[in-house]
């Protein structure tokens, strides 16, 4: 690897200052994407700005309204070990347990998962399905955008020069709602999704009040399939309706063929995984019914 410097700022302001002064600086959270890409020669930053000592990026807390405030650099293990997350956002806990294996989860963050902007990033469809909002800080102050707006292409995001993802705000779960993420990998773990589908639904009076479907690894970015959610709204959670929504997701996918899977396989898997994820999300919503 080429030489680089390392800084471990203790405050957000200090971190932003370092990033502003060093155009070739790179934020460094768990390093599980960054260090791998640097070793492969895909990135060669001059400075790594360690995010793990900045309080805002390491918070994991619920505010008064029940919104989850999740710092961008919080490692997966803290997420799935947190009782509140396990109880209220089980799909989030599950995806944190899915990324890599135990030693990866000691380090990997959801901020890194999102900022790396791989189409296959597992946590992103979940964050989208859960309506998470990104908090971004930069030289021009703070801004917020929905997670589904964040990635603009493989490895590309909306972050401008000197900007940092501070964390996520995830709204409190509504009553009778449930979410689920399923991915397909040839190995049971330690593998990158060939395709993934997240679903979140709310039931109300026997019908689906709203639903959100988001996909991984089947488009240049993680993909929110609005048409699938729209189609389900106000419909009964029947097998037929679920299949139709899955079909809409399948059509929305724009997969490619690569070493991890073929385009046909991916498109097909989107249908299967969306259907299964919706079924499980609905089952969870039923369980969560007051």
């Amino acid at each position: 690897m080429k030489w680089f410097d390392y800084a471990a700022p203790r405050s957000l302001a200090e971190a932003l200052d370092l990033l502003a002064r060093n155009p070739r600086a790179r934020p460094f959270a768990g390093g599980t994407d960054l260090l791998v890409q640097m070793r492969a020669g895909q990135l060669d930053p001059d400075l790594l700005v360690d995010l793990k000592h900045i309080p805002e990026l390491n918070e994991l807390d619920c505010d008064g309204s029940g919104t989850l405030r999740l710092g961008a650099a919080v490692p997966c293990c803290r997420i799935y070990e947190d009782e509140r997350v396990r109880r209220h956002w089980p799909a989030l806990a599950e995806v944190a347990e899915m990324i890599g294996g135990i030693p990866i989860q000691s380090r990997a963050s959801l901020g890194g998962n999102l900022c790396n902007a791989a189409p296959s990033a597992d946590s992103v469809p979940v964050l989208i399905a859960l309506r998470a909002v990104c908090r971004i800080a930069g030289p021009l102050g703070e801004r917020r955008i929905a997670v589904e707006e964040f990635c603009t292409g493989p490895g590309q995001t909306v972050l401008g020069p000197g900007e940092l993802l501070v964390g996520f705000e995830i709204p409190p779960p509504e009553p009778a709602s449930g979410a689920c993420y399923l991915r397909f990998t040839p190995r049971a773990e330690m593998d990158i999704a060939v395709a993934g589908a997240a679903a979140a639904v709310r039931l109300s009076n026997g019908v689906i009040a709203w639903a959100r479907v988001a996909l991984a690894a089947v488009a240049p970015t993680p993909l929110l399939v609005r048409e699938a959610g729209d189609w389900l709204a106000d419909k009964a959670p029947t097998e037929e309706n679920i299949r139709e929504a899955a079909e809409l997701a399948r059509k929305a996918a724009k997969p490619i063929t690569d070493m991890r899977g073929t385009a046909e396989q991916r498109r097909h898997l989107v249908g299967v995984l969306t259907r299964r994820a919706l079924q499980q999300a609905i089952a969870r919503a039923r369980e969560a019914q007051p």
Partner: protein
Amino acid sequence: MSGGTYRVIGTRPIRHDGADKVTGRALFGADVRLPGMVYGYVLRSPYAHARIRRIDTSRAEKHPGVLAVVTAADLPTGPDRLIDLVEGTLPVSYARANVLARDKVLYKGHAVAAVAAVSRHVAEEAARLIEVEYEPLPPVLDVLEAMREDAPRVLEDLRMREFGELTDKAGNIGEHFRHVLGDVEKGFAEADVIVEREFRTVMVHQGYLEPQSATALWNQDGRVYIWTTTQGAFSAREATAWILDLPVSQVRVTPMEVGGAFGGKIRVYLEPVAALLSRKCGRPVQITMPRRDVFEATGPTPGTYIRVKMGARADGRITAAQVWMAYETGAFPSGQCGFGAICILAPYDIPNVLIDGYDVVVNKPSTAPYRAPGATQAAFAAESVVDELAERLGMDPIEFRLKNAAREGSRRADGLKYQRIGCVEVLEAMRNHPHYRAPLEGPNRGRGVAMGYWFNIGWYSSCTISVNPDGTVNLVEGSVDLSGTRTTIAMQAAEVLGLRPEQVHPVVADTDSIGPTAVTGGSRTTYATGWAAWEAANDVIRQMKQRAALLWEVDPEAVCFEHGVFRSGDRSMTFAELAERLEETGGPVIGRGTVNPSSAGGSFAGAIVDVEVDPETGKVTVLRFTSVQDAGTAINPTAVEGQMQGGSAQGIGWALNEEYYWSPEGAMLNSSLLDYREPTALDVPPIETVIVEVPEPEHPFGVRGVGEANIVPPPAAIANAIYRAIGVRLRQLPMKPSAVLEAIWSKES
């Protein structure tokens, strides 16, 4: 079967190197630390096939921290001869061209230059400053395409060997051979059912966890010291010396602990390069391969195209088999097709056989053995056809195999007449196993079986045993220990000497300190080096009897030795008591053993596997797996089970996910442990084992060697199980989810 008479053999002692292995003290290749040591980095070709026009190393040489840069120009151009690698041979000229490419790069990852510098990072930085001008050439990547007359030529000087003779046919075919038994036309005419199928497998890697690492010091007195992770210190010595055009004795190889090898650590890749760098900079140089290089630039095992035609009578007897097989050997010929041909029909007694085999070079890394080299791909084809025949005849697949099973006196396709073998016993153990009888319920589930064979190798080994005054012994051996052979060899000495295993202290020595010993491979180590240890131990006993005779003033013939006690008349002395008195009876006792058995008893293995297929995703889950193998005599059952389980897991990986995934230009796109997808602990079930013991008739303890045959059956067994689960026969490896899905789709349409 080994019970009763033996006291040590058949027990499960703690291994001698155990404490070192669990405390992190065991020193593997990259753990060597020498004063003044610097680090090397190898620059590799980005092209699968290209002419090297020019290499300019001047910028790298000037980079701060760089001590030396070498290219093929630093290699000698000495005479050519064959390096014998036990499981294959390689001309030195090719071995040399493989360690540093001279005029042409033959595969992506082919070494072109190397740098030594004060740190790995600096060496890598400097390597990037080397300018290489390439003239890209069209690569040939597919084995059948490579056989065509108009295919791009990989090696300009390659001439085909045909039926054992060198011809003047130029092309990419290194060898064409043929085995004939009886008359296949007649055999097929007698058959009531005939099945003919085509099979494809792709290149896979041994996947050992420890990357290649070598450290070299070209000493100022002209001797070259090598510390390396190798399966054979002596073969590494010979290859390194010949590549560098040195007398073998000028090179000393110290074998380090080996973090897995499976056939992939017989060749040398880094040793000569590290030596050249050391000669230039006068310091020890260590080169460790990054994982990407391990995939791209060591020796994976060939992909294949195999066509099998078999016929059987309605009564279940196989009457004829015809095989046409072509193996891609990578950049240089490797001979693995020949091994595949020996093994492909080995479990069966078939009167009429015709096998045509081809070794074909392509622009991929030069292939190397992988556990029963060539046999797994072959068995995938043959055992799938055998399964189909059994089905067509309405016979149970194990009964069908038993009906045709090879036994003592049967002829192997290459003509060899079997001695006592355990094929029938393995099949019977499978048939009688509770797994085979257990009901398998649920949709999309199926059970498959398959057989496998590996012929095992004898070859030369050396061993010395010196007696310690406290009644223990030190055993020095030349066999590198890959998986616990220090212990299985020590146990054979202990059995002879009447000692406990822990009273034998085994040492794996460097090439200056012990006699020549062939590589740890071919399932030969417990067999042949164990035999050498048996001889050395008997030599010790012979000498100790003389000492006892001296003390007792009797004839040496009048002294007997049993269960650790020397006796003559009513006088007796334990081994330890006598050991204490060696000084007064003539000095130290050292026993020697050297062996060179020409053949070894082959080993048969079988697998029973249950799978579940998710027809919506194509994913195959292995629910239950039983491995059955003839070990001859199981010296250490724990070690035998370990071999069977390890080979089975590798076979499962080969069956389901592992592959070299190529770009059209010939670049391996999945050269990481993430995307190569070796099985994790979650991808394999508990692996049940059944050790069958049909002692090998010539070995003093009846050992057969168990390292290899176990990997052979799994892919075929899994293919047969998938068929039973979903009614689709897969004839291509790996049977990855996309392939299973496509097979389901094409069946539906």
